């Protein structure tokens, strides 16, 4: 019988793999890279073995599947710009928001993975200072991959600077807000994130 750890890990792997396939089906580079990060770091983060870590891993995998599905259907370039005639900039903002939503729990999962497997210990200041950079760092290879994938198929219709800039800007705003809230709570409660999870600093 599978233990709790393996259950969460399998759940995460299955959802991330589906999310990965969804992203590949429409050359969604950001979705693909996000799925890869969620797959790898989610699996590592399960090693922490706390309920909070499990919830975050599952939430990330679930959000990833939802946002990847949305980005190739309801919020895709074909649906919004080609069919509904929505302005390119507004579409950039919408798709950027969809991609940014999953970054919030994913960054936390990356912190948990780094703490549980690589011995990192983060205090509130590090969480507040580094979160934005981690999220944007995840997105850069996403755009790179998207560029490569679209160029291979000679289809660069939806690749415009608005898409890139709004993608980064929405992530920036989402992570500034979420890291401020999380770090504020950590600071207030004197918490640090280490291999055992969130603990009150001695």
């Amino acid at each position, binding site marked *: 019988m599978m233990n709790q750890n393996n259950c969460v890990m399998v759940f995460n792997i299955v959802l991330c793999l589906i999310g990965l396939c969804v992203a590949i089906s429409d050359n969604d580079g950001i979705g693909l890279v996000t799925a890869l990060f969620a797959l790898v770091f989610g699996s590592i983060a399960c090693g922490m073995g706390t309920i909070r870590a499990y919830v975050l891993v599952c939430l990330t995998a679930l959000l990833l599947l939802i946002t990847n599905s949305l980005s190739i259907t309801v919020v895709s370039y074909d649906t919004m710009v080609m069919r509904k005639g929505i302005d390119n900039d507004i579409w950039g903002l919408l798709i950027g928001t969809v991609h940014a939503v999953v970054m919030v729990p994913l960054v936390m999962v990356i912190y948990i993975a*780094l*703490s549980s497997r690589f*011995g990192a210990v983060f205090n509130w*200041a*590090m969480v507040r200072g580094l979160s934005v950079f981690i999220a944007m*760092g995840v997105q850069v290879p996403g755009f790179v991959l998207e560029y490569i994938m679209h160029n291979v198929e000679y289809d660069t219709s939806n690749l415009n*600077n608005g898409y890139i800039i709004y993608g980064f*800007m929405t992530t920036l705003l989402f992570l500034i807000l979420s890291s401020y809230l999380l770090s504020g709570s950590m600071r207030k409660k004197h918490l640090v994130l280490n291999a055992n999870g969130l603990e009150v600093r001695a």
Partner: protein
Amino acid sequence: MTAWSEEHELLLAKAFLVVGPMSMMVICLFVVLGMAPGLESGHPREYLVATCVLWAILIMILPLLRVLKLLALPMWMVAIITANMYFYVISLNLGLYLDVSWWGDMGHVVSSTIVAGIVFLALALMDSRSPEYVTLGNRAGFCIMLFLVALSFGGIWEVLEGSTDAIAGNPYMVYGASDTMGDLTADTVGVLAITVYAYLVLGKKSTDEITSSVKLGRKAFA
């Protein structure tokens, strides 16, 4: 740092205060005499002269700060920054940015190594000078963090570029998305190179040792 090496470093900084701007002026002389290939490639003479003069001033900043005992950086960092300055000025004066299609991307690779180097140093400082209970973990953990944080600056750069154009009322980033994504690809290569370097260095030195040569402010030199 031993007394000898500190003295040696100071001597080097004093020498570069003269050699740095002089070398830029030598390049400038080629432009003034009409012998710089960049002129034939299409760069205006005033633009090349202004670039040489500006970089002649900029190249003095780090040695000057060192001589004034305000800032000391590790030699590898100073070497990367200085090499980047020469790379840019020489490439421009040779007309490589206009004549060679991929030279701009290579410039992005080279300049992203500076950014990644600064991030490496900043994270090492964060690791060594934070409270004892805080750490970025072992070298693999440190390098994952370095890779992601350094990469983000490629994105931040593009946001700044786009925002500046938007504020100025210009059509943003006239070179198109392919150029932006090409830049991000080049940035990724540069960051990857420094991350590999950092992984190798962290195998031999601790973050305390890496940051021991960083000094900021006169008190640090006392």
